[in-house]
């Protein structure tokens, strides 16, 4: 058809309801309502939205765990409805869920990390290397012999991430994966995601931490199963009214900046990080002092 290449992830008019059997005469409650979204290879996308806005439902469509009630999802040009392609899709898109207990399968840490690649028939030496690397990436190398049920909640979460990484997926999807991590593990995870993304892996993450979302290159905002806003973090968070209306918040450095701007005219209110905020304060002061 001479069509130009389709995006890596291609979602068209996706509708989903958990209540497929609802009375035929009434419209079912749509968890996702007519979502269209394209994600290119190598993107870093954060999905934000209040609890119940459809984030998890959307992410579960990306590796065929859920198939659309209406509309279509293509991954790498494979339609997720195509049962023949489920294996390909699942090894392309790695998933990490909110509660790690649901996805830990082995009784010892390193065996859990090895489980996925072992089942793909990865040769022994490479398997070893993959397990070692994945445990290093999340900082669990010292616990590799620990029985999995003697891990803390945060450590289990890191293990679930390592087990996804050992599959070397082209795309990593994380649903609130940092929620139960301590600040150090959390910032290590975010650094790992960033460097994975630098090396070409597509990262898609759902989060409630607005500072975490601000690290992405693009934010997709869901409300009531619809995309209500998307774009660069600066653009998205500058729509403060919409953000507040759908029960979200702006990152704290921006909140401080907005408060300063309300008192000091000309102060820029769009700083997303502590660095940006501090620089804005210093620059503002220098200009004022030298300018007068």
């Amino acid at each position, binding site marked *: 058809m001479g069509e130009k290449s389709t995006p890596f992830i291609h979602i068209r008019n996706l509708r989903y309801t958990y209540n497929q059997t609802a009375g035929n005469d009434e419209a079912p409650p749509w968890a996702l309502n007519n979502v269209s979204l394209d994600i290119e290879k190598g993107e870093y996308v954060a999905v934000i939205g209040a609890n119940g806005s459809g984030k998890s439902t959307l992410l579960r469509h990306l590796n065929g765990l859920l198939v659309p009630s209406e509309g279509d999802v293509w991954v790498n040009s494979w339609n997720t409805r195509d049962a023949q392609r489920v294996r390909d899709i699942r090894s392309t898109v790695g998933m990490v869920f909110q509660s790690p207990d649901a996805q830990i399968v082995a009784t010892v840490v390193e065996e859990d990390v090895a489980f996925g690649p072992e089942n793909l028939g990865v040769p022994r030496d490479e398997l070893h290397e993959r397990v070692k690397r994945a445990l290093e990436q999340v900082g669990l190398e010292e616990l590799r012999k620990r*029985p999995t049920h*003697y891990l803390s909640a945060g450590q289990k979460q890191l293990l679930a991430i390592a087990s996804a990484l050992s599959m070397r997926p082209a795309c990593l999807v994380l649903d609130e994966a940092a929620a139960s991590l*301590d600040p150090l593990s959390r910032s290590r995870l975010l650094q790992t995601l960033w460097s994975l993304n630098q090396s070409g892996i597509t990262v898609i993450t759902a989060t409630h931490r607005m500072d975490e979302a601000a690290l992405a290159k693009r934010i997709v905002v869901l409300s009531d199963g619809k995309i209500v806003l998307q774009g660069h973090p600066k653009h998205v968070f500058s729509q403060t009214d919409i953000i507040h209306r759908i029960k979200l918040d702006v990152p704290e450095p921006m909140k*401080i900046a907005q408060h300063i701007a309300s008192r000091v005219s000309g102060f820029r209110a769009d700083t997303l990080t502590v660095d940006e905020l*501090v620089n804005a*304060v210093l620059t503002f*002061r220098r200009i*004022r002092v030298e300018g*007068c």
Partner: protein
Amino acid sequence: MQKKPVIEVRKLTHRYLAGTPLEVQSLRGIDFTLYTDEIVGIVGPTGSGKSTFLCHLNGLIRPQEGDVLVFGVSLADSRADMRMIRKRIGMLFQNPEQQLFERFAGDDVAFGPRNYDLSKEEVREAVRRAMEMVGLPFSYKDRLTADLSLGEKRRLALAGVFALDPEILVLDEPTASLDPEGRRQVLEVLKGWRREPGRSLIVVSHNMEDIAELADRTYLLSDGEVVYSGVTGKLFADRELLLRQGLALTVPLQVVHRLSQNGISLGKGNVSARGVAEEIGSVLHGSAQ
């Protein structure tokens, strides 16, 4: 006013898989006190022993070494009346919404009271009161548990604990994975709950903003030991300690610190975003004139 200790922990030590090659020492001689009418925070890196410690407070794990005294009763004593203690200490683990098991929301809240020989009317009243405390309309009792949002489920789980009218509440990560609005609601519920005299609260959290907002005193655990205990504000002022323990500074504290490195010193003790913003505003106004 003389403060009364309600929980006293002395030299508590715990090993998992003791005596095997896989032995893990989880707690190393913890001393801890909770007084009535206070909120105590517990922070520390993942794997530092926080959850193991909490499990000792209502006897889910009995002391291997050391002792835990709750309302003066030693939990090392196998004859301790655990039924009484578990009624007086309400406990909520991480992601409690996964532990809701009744089909209808109201039944989940009623589960506790029904097990304590209350009349039907008393149970109904306990459920009504508990749901009101967490800001869920009483009519939600007839909703399907599965149909509630995450934030509602989290508050429903809290209501289940409130229904037994505990004097002490122990919460592990009460705001994790909630959206900003859900988090705010839970924090308000907790603050409201403890306003009644004779109640005290222990909160474990990785969210430093939660701790800053709630806790009067804070314990910092690291590798099974208490490495700080004292007023929360003082912990947040100790930048080196926090960083050494891998804990994050709150955004306002980071801003205060970075500005002071650049020759702008703001007054100490201001830890809220608004307070810091006001001060920066004044500094910038000053330099503009």
